[in-house]
């Protein structure tokens, strides 16, 4: 097991290294950079930038160095925990990202929970009662859930919340709590309000996971070991849960890994619609303004979030499936 963990950890570091390069390239892609866009703005406002001012600016953002050096210094500082300086907010990135990232994590995690709480029971049901009315209706709902862009879902939810209950469900806190310090009622308010983004973000994932679980379970149901178990007198319900499900759950766990990127993507856009104080909106601003440090940090941190999540799901899988553990 330890060998396995170490192996996976090594893999993760390597993956992150690759990702950091990709992120850097992506950030560098837009023609021009912060400095040029600054100058444009200055000229627009009729100012004239002196050459040494430009030089300083370039030096400040390491733009005078060749790209690979820029990358190295960036990633070096990043690892040091210095995420650089955001141009558009004229603040250190550190002050901007963490809270928002925290909320992103919060919503993503609750989305995962939502996904499983819903997907597992329904998945099992529709597999065990294959081709029943229930199975079909679950299937249809899943299909719709899968087909609805989650920003549209968010819009609809808001719309109906407004139309029917006259409540605005934007933001993570009700108006009265907005500026308060964290307190128990505030926390409860947060949790109740979380359910909406969580379910909206989790919708698509739920559909997918449910289908996967159903498929796996159906595959397992007729395996010899299940028949053996029946033949030795295991009662039906126990049989399902202890044998096929126990195995079907494994690939299901591993789908968490594939789920995360989707969820985090979904979160990014949903949060914009529901104007939640998470990464989405600010990332967009940063990207449009070519605020390289801010955008880069966001992309990198989100990637780390996903990769770590995947690692966790792999470890859970290994813990649950001896075959992997013993390999």
């Amino acid at each position, binding site marked *: 097991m330890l060998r396995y963990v170490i192996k996976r950890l090594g893999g993760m570091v390597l993956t992150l290294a690759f990702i950091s390069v990709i992120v850097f390239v992506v950030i560098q892609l837009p023609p021009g950079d912060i400095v040029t866009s600054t100058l444009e703005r200055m000229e627009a406002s009729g100012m004239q930038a002196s050459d040494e001012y430009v030089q300083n600016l370039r030096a400040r953002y390491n733009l005078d160095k060749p790209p690979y050096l820029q990358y190295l210094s960036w990633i070096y500082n990043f690892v040091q925990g210095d995420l650089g300086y955001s141009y558009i907010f004229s603040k250190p990135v550190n002050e901007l990202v963490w809270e928002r990232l925290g909320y992103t994590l919060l919503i993503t995690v609750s989305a995962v929970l939502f996904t499983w709480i819903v997907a597992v029971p329904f998945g099992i049901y529709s597999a065990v009662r294959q081709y029943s009315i229930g199975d079909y209706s679950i299937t249809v709902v899943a299909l719709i859930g899968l087909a609805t862009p989650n920003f549209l879902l968010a819009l609809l939810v808001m719309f109906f919340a407004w139309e029917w209950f006259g409540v605005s469900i934007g933001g993570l806190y009700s108006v009265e709590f907005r500026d308060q310090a964290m307190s128990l009622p505030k926390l409860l308010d947060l949790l109740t309000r979380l359910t909406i983004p969580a379910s909206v973000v989790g919708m698509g994932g739920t559909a997918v996971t449910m289908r996967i679980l*159903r498929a796996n379970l159906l595959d397992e149901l007729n395996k010899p070991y299940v028949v053996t178990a029946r033949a030795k007198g295991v009662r039906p319900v126990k049989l399902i849960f202890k044998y096929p499900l126990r195995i079907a759950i494994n690939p299901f766990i591993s789908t968490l890994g594939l789920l995360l990127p989707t969820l985090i993507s979904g979160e990014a856009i949903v949060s914009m619609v529901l104007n939640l104080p998470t990464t989405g909106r600010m990332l967009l601003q940063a990207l449009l303004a070519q605020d390289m440090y801010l955008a880069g940090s966001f992309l990198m941190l989100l990637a780390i979030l996903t990769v770590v999540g995947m690692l966790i799901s792999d470890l859970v899988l290994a813990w649950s499936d001896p075959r992997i553990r013993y390999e």
Partner: protein
Amino acid sequence: MSEAVLERPPDSQDPIAQVAPEELDLLTPKQLAWRRFKRHRLALVSGGVLIFMYFVAGFAEFFAPYATTYRNVTAINAPPMDVRFFEHDGTFHFRPFVYGYDLHINEETWAREYSENPEKLYPLRFFARGDPYELWNLFDGNLHLFIAEDETGAGYIHFLGTDQLGRDVLSRVIYGGRISLSIGMLGIGLTLILGVFFGGFAGYLGGWVDRIVQRMIEVLQSLPTLPLWMALTAALPAHWSSLRIYFGVTIILSLFGWTALARQVRGRFLALRNEDFVIAARLIGSGQNRIIFKHMMPSFMSHTITTATLAVPGVILGETALSFLGIGIRPPIVSWGVLMEQAQNYQVISMTPWILYPGLFVVIAVMAFNVLGDGLRDAADPYNTGGL
């Protein structure tokens, strides 16, 4: 005394086994797949729906009553009209018609409110001459499936209402479909090429090539796609023409979509490489190409196409999301996403809910693709019990 009887176990899992041999024996594998596909009613329907959608989108100029740029200033943010056969006073018209709008400003809210005006009675005219257009920028024409106008030539019809500039939502949905649906196809085309290329290489060459591709896939699959798309599309230069943007977006979308496909192609390749019939092909002296293209390709093309179909929705949804954020397709080109960009908050929606119609079409299209994909998969693989 035929072996067939001796050897076909009645309790076999193979669905083919239960039929009288003669019947199925004469069918080709394609026919068998088609048999299985036909059993999947929902998939059949979805196929039909998609064909219809693509057809309409293809001939948008003809099906849409108005051009995307046409503005009906007398009807800004006007609600959908309903088509009628009976006047208010009950007189029946064989030819369906619509009532024109009357505009009032609500004194309290200062909101525009429209009411039907019995005086303005615009009969629908089918295959009628309307606004001129260039079909595919090639053929001039002005024939439309339907328009609404009275003898004086006055009249307008807005099935799905109009937006805040008074543009006909239905027409824009039809034109938007052209973009959104085509992006789906184009994107999948690229995805296929990339996927088969990388997957094929990894699977066939194996060794370090395989390891590298594997690692690439791993990395790409562990990236949160949307933020990355955002980053890339945001990087598309502002001065680009919306057509170049369109292709740019398509490429970006498929740039990260090929991994699943590559995985699958690779898997099939590895599996097939050791199949006895491929070894047999080698032993009779077939060359590499013949083995790959004559013996291996057919066996995994079906699966590949299935996966591709199931990947189309991803592209469509991606485009919609990006455009919705205003960093995807840019006007004047319209896509379903672009149309929904107006619906940024629920206030807008509660005033003009009909601008969400494009979303409905997105949902339908995506659903259809998913179901079709499942149908194809089940058809391609008789033993597949999974999916929907």
